[in-house]
C-alpha cells in the first residue's frame, strides 16, 4: 500500500507519476481479483451445465425405442398346442409365441436351406422375452386365440442402438440408378452405376469413414438396389461387385434406384451384422419397424436385457423406503428438536447431545451402511434387501439434518410468542405445542422435505444392506425384497452392453424429476408460509 512517508519533498501533492503508476497496478490487481471470482463461478456453472447436458443427451435416445410390429394370427398350434385354453399354461408358453414370430420372419427372409446360424442371426433381431407381454395378454383373454392380433415386440438392444445412430459411424449416399446388372444372388452380382460421379461419391465416402489410426479396418458399403440389399466387396470404376444380403432374389431392373449405406466398421467389429441391418432396413420400409415412446421404462421392472428393463420396481421400492424413513426421521427429528430447543436444561448431557448431532450430520453415509449391516441385519436378524432396513438406515442418516432444520425453524419463532402464551396461563408444554410448533411448522416441513430428498438420492449405505439384489417383481410391502432408484442407476451403469448407457441416463432423469419435485414443494412451502418476524 502506498503511504507518503518519504519526507517533506513529497508533501504538496499525492498525485505523482509513481503514485499514478502504483494506482494503475492496484486497479489492475483489483480487476484481476474480480475476474478470478467470476471465473470460479463460471467454471462451477459450466460444470453443472456439462453434467446436465451430457446426461440429457445420453438419455434422449432412451425415451423412444424401436419395435417390430406385426399383425399375426395367433394360432392355437403354437401358443396352446394341447388345446386346454389354460391361462397359466399360455402365459408360461413364451417359446410358443416366440416361435410364431420367428417362423413369420423366417418365411419372409430365409431360404429353405437356411442353417442354424442363419436362423440365429435372424432371430437375434428381437429378444426372446420381449413376447412376454403378448403371452400375458393372450392368457388374460384366451378367446383371442385364432384371431388376428398386433404384435409389438422390442427390437434387440444393439439393433435399436444402431437405428438410433449408435454402434458404428455411417453415411448414406445416393448413387443414382442401375445401368446394368449381371450375375446371380447365389454367386455374386455385378452392378454398373449409371454415372461416374456417383461412383466417385461412393469411394469418397468409403475413404472418409475408413479409420486411419487402425490398420486393416476399411469401411464397408451396403448397397440397396431396388428392394434388394447387397454388401459391396470391391469396385472398379462404375462396376460394383456385390454379395446378396436380403430382399427379393432378383437382379434389379435397369434404372432401379440405388442407395449406399457406408459404415465405418465391418461386421466383425460391431455387434450388429450386415444382414441384420439389411433385414431391419427392409422391415423399416415395410413400416414393420417403427419408433415408439419407451413406456416400458416406467412400466417394466428390472431385466437382464436393456430393451426390456424398466424402473417400476425401483420407484415403488424407493417410495416404500422413503415411507419408512419419513416415519422414523420426521417425528423423531421434530421431537428431538423441540426437546433440545425448548425443554433441555443447560447441562453436560445436553451439550453432549448437541455436539453429537452436529458430528453425526458429517459422518460419511457409508458408515451408516456399516451400522445397518452390523446392527439391523447381523444383530437383530432383519432380512437383507428390504425397504424396512433401508428406510431405518436412511432415517438415522437424515435424522441430524431434520433436527438441525427443525431447530432453526423453532429458533426463528420470536420469544414474545412463548412469553405471551405463558402470560395467559399456558404451561410450558402448552405454549410449545399450541403456539410455537404450529408457527414453526412450514420451516420444519421444508427441512424435512429436503432431508427426504437427500435420502432419496443416497446410494452407498444401501449397497451394504443388500439392496443391490436383482429384483424383477414390484415389491408388495416394506418386508419384500426390493431395490431403489439410485441403486438401480448404479447397477445399470455397470452393465456391459452399450444400450445400458442411455438407459442409465434415463433412470437418472427419472430420479432427478423426483428430486426437483420435492425441492419445488419445499420452495413453495417456504414462499407461501414463511413469516418474517
Amino acid at each position, binding site marked *: 500500500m502506498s503511504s507518503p512517508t518519504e519526507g517533506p519533498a513529497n508533501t504538496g501533492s499525492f498525485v505523482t507519476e509513481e503514485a499514478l503508476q502504483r494506482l494503475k497496478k492496484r486497479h489492475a490487481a483489483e480487476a484481476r481479483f474480480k475476474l478470478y*471470482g467470476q471465473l470460479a463461478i463460471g467454471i462451477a456453472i459450466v460444470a453443472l451445465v456439462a453434467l446436465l447436458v451430457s446426461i440429457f443427451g*445420453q438419455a434422449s435416445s432412451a425415451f423412444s425405442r424401436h419395435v417390430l410390429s406385426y399383425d399375426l394370427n395367433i394360432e392355437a398350434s403354437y401358443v396352446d398346442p394341447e388345446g386346454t385354453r389354460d391361462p397359466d399354461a399360455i402365459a408360461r408358453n413364451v417359446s410358443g409365441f416366440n416361435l410364431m414370430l420367428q417362423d413369420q420372419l423366417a418365411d419372409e427372409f430365409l431360404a429353405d436351406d437356411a442353417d442354424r446360424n442363419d436362423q440365429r442371426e435372424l432371430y437375434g433381431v428381437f429378444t426372446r422375452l420381449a413376447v412376454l407381454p403378448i403371452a400375458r395378454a393372450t392368457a388374460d383373454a384366451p378367446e383371442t386365440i385364432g384371431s388376428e392380433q398386433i404384435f409389438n415386440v422390442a427390437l434387440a438392444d444393439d439393433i435399436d442402438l444402431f437405428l438410433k445412430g449408435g454402434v458404428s459411424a455411417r453415411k448414406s449416399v445416393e448413387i443414382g440408378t442401375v445401368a446394368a446388372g449381371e450375375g446371380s444372388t447365389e454367386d455374386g452380382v455385378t452392378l454398373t452405376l449409371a454415372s461416374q460421379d456417383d461412383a466417385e461419391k461412393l469411394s469418397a465416402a468409403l475413404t472418409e469413414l475408413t479409420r486411419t489410426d487402425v490398420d486393416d479396418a476399411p469401411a464397408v458399403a451396403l448397397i440397396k438396389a431396388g428392394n434388394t440389399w447387397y454388401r459391396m466387396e470391391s469396385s472398379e470404376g462404375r462396376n460394383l461387385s456385390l454379395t446378396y444380403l436380403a430382399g427379393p432374389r432378383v437382379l434389379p431392373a435397369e434404372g432401379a434406384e440405388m442407395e449406399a449405406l457406408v459404415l465405418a466398421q465391418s461386421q466383425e467389429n460391431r455387434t450388429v451384422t450386415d444382414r441384420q441391418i439389411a433385414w431391419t432396413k427392409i422391415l423399416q420400409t415395410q413400416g414393420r419397424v417403427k419408433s415408439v415412446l419407451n413406456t416400458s421404462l416406467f412400466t417394466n421392472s428390472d431385466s437382464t436385457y436393456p430393451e426390456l428393463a424398466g424402473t417400476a420396481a425401483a420407484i415403488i421400492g424407493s417410495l416404500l423406503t422413503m415411507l419408512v424413513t419419513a416415519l422414523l426421521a420426521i417425528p423423531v427429528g421434530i421431537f428431538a428438536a423441540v*426437546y433440545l430447543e425448548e425443554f433441555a436444561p443447560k447441562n453436560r448431557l445436553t451439550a453432549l447431545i448437541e455436539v453429537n448431532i452436529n458430528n453425526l450430520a458429517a459422518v*460419511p453415509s457409508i458408515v451408516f451402511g456399516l451400522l445397518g449391516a452390523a446392527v439391523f441385519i447381523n444383530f437383530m436378524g432383519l432380512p437383507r434387501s428390504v425397504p424396512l432396513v433401508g428406510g431405518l438406515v436412511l432415517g438415522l442418516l437424515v435424522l441430524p439434518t431434520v433436527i438441525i432444520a427443525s431447530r432453526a425453524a423453532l429458533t426463528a419463532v420470536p420469544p414474545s410468542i412463548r412469553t405471551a402464551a405463558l402470560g395467559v396461563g399456558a404451561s410450558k408444554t402448552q405454549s410449545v405445542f399450541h403456539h410455537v410448533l404450529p408457527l414453526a411448522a412450514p420451516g420444519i416441513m421444508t427441512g424435512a422435505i429436503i432431508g427426504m430428498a437427500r435420502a432419496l438420492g443416497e*446410494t452407498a449405505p444401501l449397497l451394504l444392506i443388500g439392496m443391490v439384489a436383482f429384483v424383477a417383481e414390484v415389491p408388495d410391502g416394506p418386508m419384500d425384497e426390493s431395490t431403489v432408484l439410485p441403486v438401480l442407476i448404479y447397477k445399470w451403469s455397470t452393465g456391459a452392453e452399450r444400450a445400458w448407457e442411455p438407459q442409465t441416463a434415463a433412470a437418472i432423469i427419472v430420479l432427478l424429476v423426483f428430486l426437483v419435485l420435492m425441492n419445488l414443494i419445499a420452495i413453495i412451502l417456504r414462499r407461501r408460509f414463511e413469516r418474517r418476524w
Partner: protein
Amino acid sequence: MLETFGHLPVAWLLFAVLAAAAFMAFYVGRTQAVGIARGYTSQLNSQPNYHGYFVAMATIAPAAIILFLYMLFGESLVRAQFASELPERIRALGDLELGQYIDRISEHATRRDATATGNALFDAASDRYTNLVGLSRIAAILLAVLAAAGGFFFGRSRLSGDFRARARVEDGIKFLLFLCAAIAILTTIGIVASLLFEALRFFSRVNVFSFLFGTEWNAQTGADFGAIPLFFGTFLIAFLAMLVAAPIGLFSAIYLSEYASPRVRSIVKPILELLAGIPTVVYGFFALQFVAPIVRSSATWINGLPFIPDGFLAAQPTSALAAGLVMGIMIIPFVSSLSDDVINAVPQTLRDGAYAMGATKSETVKQVVMPAALPGVIAALLLAVSRAIGETMIVVMAAGQRAQITPDPTADLTTITVQIVALLTGDTEFDSAKTLSAFALGFVLFIVTLIFNLIALRVVKKYREKYE
C-alpha cells in the same frame, strides 16, 4: 391356534388394539374426572382431558415397553428354546452351522405358503418353530394386556380432585421428547460399538500394525490386509478434489459476498446449491461416462508427445484423476456456502476501516477480511476434506479397484470406501476376515472424519463467538 399366530402379521393388529385401548382409557379417565367434580370441572386441579390423557398414558406405556422388549429379544429367546430342543447330533454342529440351520428353518417356517419338504426332521422342526413363535407371541400379548390392565387401574386409582394430572402428562411428554433426542446419541453409540466390535474381531486375526502399515492389499482372496495403498488412494483423490474445490469454492464465495449485486447473488447461489442437491450416484455416472474417457485420451495424447517416455502415464479407463475432478465439482458448493457464511460473519466495520484507509476492494479482502475469516475458512476446508474422504459412489464408479501406490493420477486407484463396498456387497458372512476387514476400514474412516469434523466444528464455534 399356535400355528395361525405364528404366521399372523400381529404387529398391525397390536397397534390397532393399543390405539383402541388408549382411546377407551382416555374416555374412562375423562368421565371419571367429570364425575369427581360433579360437573364443576373448575374445581379440579387439571382439566378433565388431562385426566383422560393420564389414564391413557398409564395404560399403553407399560404395554408398549413389553412389546418393545419382545421385539428386541423375542426372536433370540425363541431360537434359544428351539436350539435346546433340537436332537443332540444337530446341536453338536457348532454355533455357526447351528445358527445357519435355524436360519433356514425360520425362513421356511415364516413363509406362509410353505409346503412340506419331505425331510421329516426338517418339517417337524419347522412346525415346532412356528409353534414356538406363536407361543412367544401369545405370551407377549398376554403380558402386554395384563400390563395395560394394571396400568389402567393404577391410572384410575390416582385420579382425584387435586391430582396434578397435567403435570404428570407433561412429564410423560417431556420424557418422550428426551427419548427422541437420545436416539441421536444411541445412533453414535451404535456406530462406535458395532464398528469397534467387528474391528476388534478382525484384529484378533490380523495384526493391527500389519493392517495399518502393510503395503499389500488382497482382501478378496483373504491373503493380505495392508491398508496403506487404500489410505494413499483415499488421500490422493481427496487432494485432487480439494485442488478443484478449494480455489473455485473460495473465489465464488468471495465474489458472491463482496462483489456480486444482490440480483446476481440471488441467481448464482441457488445454481451452486443445485450442484449440492445432485445425488452422488449421478456424479459417479458423469465421471465414468464423460470425464474418465477425456482423462484417458488426454493421458494417451501426453504419452504420445515426442519428449515423453513411452507409458509415462497409465491412462486407465477409470482413474483417480477422473474421480478427483468430479468429486471436486461436487464439493464446490460445500466449500462456497460454508465460506460464504464465514465471510459474511466478518463485521462490516473491519471493511469500512480498510476502505477509509484507501484500500481497494481486493486489498480489503486479501488483507483484512480473509485474515479475519481464516479460522472459519480452514474449518470449511476441513469439513470439505472429511466429505471427500467419506464420499463413496463417485470413487466406486470411477476410481477403480486396484490397490497400488503410484503418484500417477491417471492410474486406477482404490480407496477405503471402494473396498468397503466391494467387501460387503454380495454374499456376506459375518465371520470371515474378509468381511470383518470392511468394518476395520470403516472404523478408520469414522475416526479420521470424526477428528476432522470435531476440529472444524470447534473452530467454527470459537470463530462465531468471537464476532457475535
